[in-house]
């Protein structure tokens, strides 16, 4: 069954059986198992490239690229905040798509549910970061940590919205039941995103001429090296997202396996109760 055009790293969703390698954490511990499955290798590659990308972005962003005439060094946040915000929307998009695929009878499988859960959780982390970096950007630019900027306000709503979604995922129940309930909750949450965005945008434009220097499509003159750094940061943060997504996805797989094994034991014990050799 072909996966939807999710990033390549995911196509080979590495089975948990693969050896736990060190990923981007620096301790290069020799992998325990000798067998190195190909997908785990791809994952390491993604992790390594992402790490290199981020380091390069930081190096370029902080030291190499020139400060901006208007914003001075503040522009350096531009290499962080927009790409994190972009990853947030990608994460929620992937969660929405996989929830749809889970609900669609033909493509229904718990794999989509695990993917939706993983992507939403990573999405919430990135939403939190978008808020933090956004308000850090706002403090010197607009003089206050929180100015009800339309984008940030919608992001704050998203943050709470998807915390609610994660709470729905934790309601105990059979895995199929939990999956279906979470998928529906994801759809409901996702439909709310555009409504929130436009009503907040319209609401803010009533109170303040929308000439606020929006961090995403700022009108600053993009110097050559700046553009490259911006592109690099988008790519590397997307890779970070993929790496985090796959690891979170594998964690769900492991938890499910633990649950599965427990089930086999439970059935054996149950059989024993009937003291009659099962026919």
């Amino acid at each position, binding site marked *: 069954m072909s996966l939807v055009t999710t990033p390549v790293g995911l196509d080979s969703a590495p089975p948990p059986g693969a050896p736990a390698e060190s990923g981007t954490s620096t301790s290069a511990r020799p992998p325990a198992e000798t067998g190195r499955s190909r997908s785990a290798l791809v994952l390491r590659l993604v992790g390594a490239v992402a790490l290199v990308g981020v380091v390069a972005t930081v190096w370029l962003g902080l030291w190499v690229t020139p400060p901006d005439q208007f914003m001075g060094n503040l522009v350096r946040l531009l290499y962080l905040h927009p790409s994190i915000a972009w990853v947030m929307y990608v994460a929620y998009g992937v969660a929405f798509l996989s929830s749809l695929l889970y609900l669609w009878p033909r493509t229904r499988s718990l794999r989509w549910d695990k993917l939706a859960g993983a992507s939403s959780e990573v999405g919430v982390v990135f939403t939190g970061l978008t808020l933090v970096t956004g308000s850090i950007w706002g403090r010197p630019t607009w003089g206050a940590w929180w100015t009800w900027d339309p984008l940030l306000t919608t992001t704050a709503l998203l943050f709470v919205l998807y*915390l609610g979604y994660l709470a729905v995922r934790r309601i105990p129940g059979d895995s199929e039941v939990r999956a279906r309930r979470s998928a529906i909750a994801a759809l409901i949450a996702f439909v709310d995103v555009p409504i929130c965005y436009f009503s907040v945008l319209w609401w803010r434009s009533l109170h303040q001429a929308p000439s606020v220097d929006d961090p995403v499509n700022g009108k600053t003159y993009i110097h050559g090296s700046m553009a490259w750094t911006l592109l690099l940061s988008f790519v590397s943060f997307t890779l970070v997202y993929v790496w985090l997504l796959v690891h979170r996805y594998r964690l769900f797989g492991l938890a499910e396996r633990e649950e599965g094994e427990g089930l086999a034991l439970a059935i054996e014990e149950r059989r024993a109760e009937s003291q009659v050799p099962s026919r």
Partner: protein
Amino acid sequence: MWRDALLVAGKDLKIELRSKVGLGQVVPFALVVLLLFGLALGPGVGRGSVLFSAEPGLFWIAVLLATVLAVQRSFAVEAVDDASDGLRLSGLDPAGIFVGKAAAIGCQLLVLELVLALVSSLLYDRHLEGGLLLAGSCVVATVGLVSIGTVYGVVSLGARQRETLLPLLFFPMVAPVLLAATKAWDAALSGSPGHGLGWLDVLAVFAVAYLAIGTVAFGPLLEDA
């Protein structure tokens, strides 16, 4: 579907009339909220006061808080000693149950909104104008509120800690309704209803979207409760 909806709505409203929880507890709760706002935002009287200008927002926050209570009450009736099997066993059409329960909560909310409108205009010294837009936004907003409220009511039926789950799910969802309804009321009360019509559209979009989603999603969600 409509037959079942009428049956469920009738049952819920009869329970409401018999037990008087809606009028007896939810409306007073909303009134207390209005009083608390008054205490919090200062006694100021007349046009300049904070309460005067914030009246629409405070009204709608009180309505939102009351909606959560009304939804929790409506589903507490179903889940007697934690067995929500009653609804499933009844053989009613799930979409009918959704529309029935939403309608029953909606009726209670409209009564509540009427009472609150009078009291808040009294408390915050703001007499009501542009009645048509006020009433219109109330009805459309209530449809949206009860639709999403009923859906999340059945979602949180399954959870043991449902008292805290429903508000967490409900309030972020209805932020646009709070926004649009407040702006619609603002426009109506400040004598320029023209501005409010756009906000009415936002309320309408929200209401239609979640009425449709509720009718479809309620069945599977009830199964999993």
